[in-house]
């Protein structure tokens, strides 16, 4: 039998991460967290999570970066906002989940071919290219990049959607696509200027 320590110790904290989370949009109030558990109780996905939202809030604000960024919890969040509505301290938990997803993607903290971050990446690429989402194309791109065999399982559904006119392959796009690219680029340059 191999014994494994499950309790975290002070030395494993990353204070810079704790500081970042308390300064990120939505995280300003994280130190007010009472650890009451209403977030976990109201979360429809918490029973599938490795850390429930309550535990994740605590790990985040104490700076356990590895655990937080490699957890499934952040990817399971569907942004249903139940926790945010229930939180007695008005902590914007959903927004924090987004921030954690972004950070996990930037620092490659998720398993390869994991569909949820792949969806986020392909989604944003499609918007940069077309300004709009063509659902059928997005779904296909995600499957190709994650689990192409699963497309077969969707063939029956795809056919039904096609027959009822709900799956259109023609690319949806905005006229002024260059405006979309400019818009996105200017956000990035302005943010960098402000940070300086």
């Amino acid at each position: 039998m191999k014994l494994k320590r499950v309790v975290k110790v002070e030395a494993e904290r990353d204070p810079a991460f704790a500081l970042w989370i308390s300064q990120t949009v939505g995280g300003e109030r994280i130190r007010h967290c009472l650890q009451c558990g209403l977030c976990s109780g109201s979360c429809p996905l918490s029973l599938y999570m490795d850390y429930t939202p309550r535990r994740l809030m605590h790990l985040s604000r104490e700076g356990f970066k590895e655990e937080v960024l490699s957890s499934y919890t952040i990817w399971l969040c569907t942004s249903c906002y139940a926790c945010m509505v229930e939180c007695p301290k008005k902590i914007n938990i959903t927004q924090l989940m987004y921030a954690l997803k972004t950070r996990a993607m930037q620092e490659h903290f998720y398993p390869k071919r994991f569909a949820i971050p792949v969806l986020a990446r392909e989604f944003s690429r499609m918007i940069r290219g077309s300004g709009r989402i063509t659902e059928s194309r997005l779904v296909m791109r995600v499957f190709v990049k994650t689990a192409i065999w699963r497309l077969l399982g969707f063939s029956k559904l795809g056919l039904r959607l096609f027959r009822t006119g709900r799956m259109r392959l023609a690319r949806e796009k905005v006229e002024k696509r260059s405006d979309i690219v400019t818009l996105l680029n200017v956000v990035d340059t302005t943010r960098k200027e402000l940070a300086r």
Partner: protein
Amino acid sequence: MKYAYYPGCSLKGTGRAYEESLLAVFRALGVELEELEDWNCCGATTYISYGELQSYALAARNLSLAKQMGRDLMAPCAACYLVLNKTQHYVREYPWIGQIVDHALDAIHLPKDIGVKVRHPLDILLNDVGLEALKAKVVHPLTGLKVATYYGCQMVRPYASFDNQRNPTSMDRVLEACGATIVYYPVKTHCCGGSQKGTLPEIGLNLIRRLLTEAQRNGAEAIATVCPLCQFNLEAFQDEASTTSKFHIPVLYFTQLLALALGVRLNEAGFQRSFINIKPLLAEKEIAYA
């Protein structure tokens, strides 16, 4: 009455029945809708995890376009409705975000004012059109049809402006005005899993099954929805979600039921796009249709 109309991507794809029935309903009620010119994707709940600030700018472009039109902006898709509202909140709450969004809008020669009023069709039906005016236009009452009203997450959370966050009733009132009977549906604001049926199939399916089971248990003959993703999840995976009990329950946009009551032809309200044929149910309930 006239509104700017923001369809969003889903209403041009899997949610076409929502757009078709919505346009038909408002036409029947004498409300004019003008589609926002050259709108772009709102970013939904996905773009934000890739680039938060960019997602606000994407939503802001639509808001700025609508503000120029000088009319309230109707957003029927629950995700679009949330994202547009949320962007306005964040730009106000965080002046530095507002500054970045302003710069971005400036670069594409759009005005910085994004303070257009974002409205949900249910809000417009209840508060601008009014239930009495709606009742007066009903030609085929949905008498005896038992409907579970499924609101999902994002129409009311976190920025409920015209309905209660925990127990919304706006859809109930609108459909009751058309003669429908609303059944007890305690999971009406629970999550359908969103895109998880695609990314984490087993988890997504469990959430879907729970929503269908509750509808069946409470005697619903149809489920009414306000969100293209909710509608899709609940309709498309009924066979897969079936266990000992089989699910066979029409999942419709609330606007489709309204259209039915207002005498719009089934094919003009997107019923031909349903996986489950509504006609046997209507015949059984002796509900007339055009």
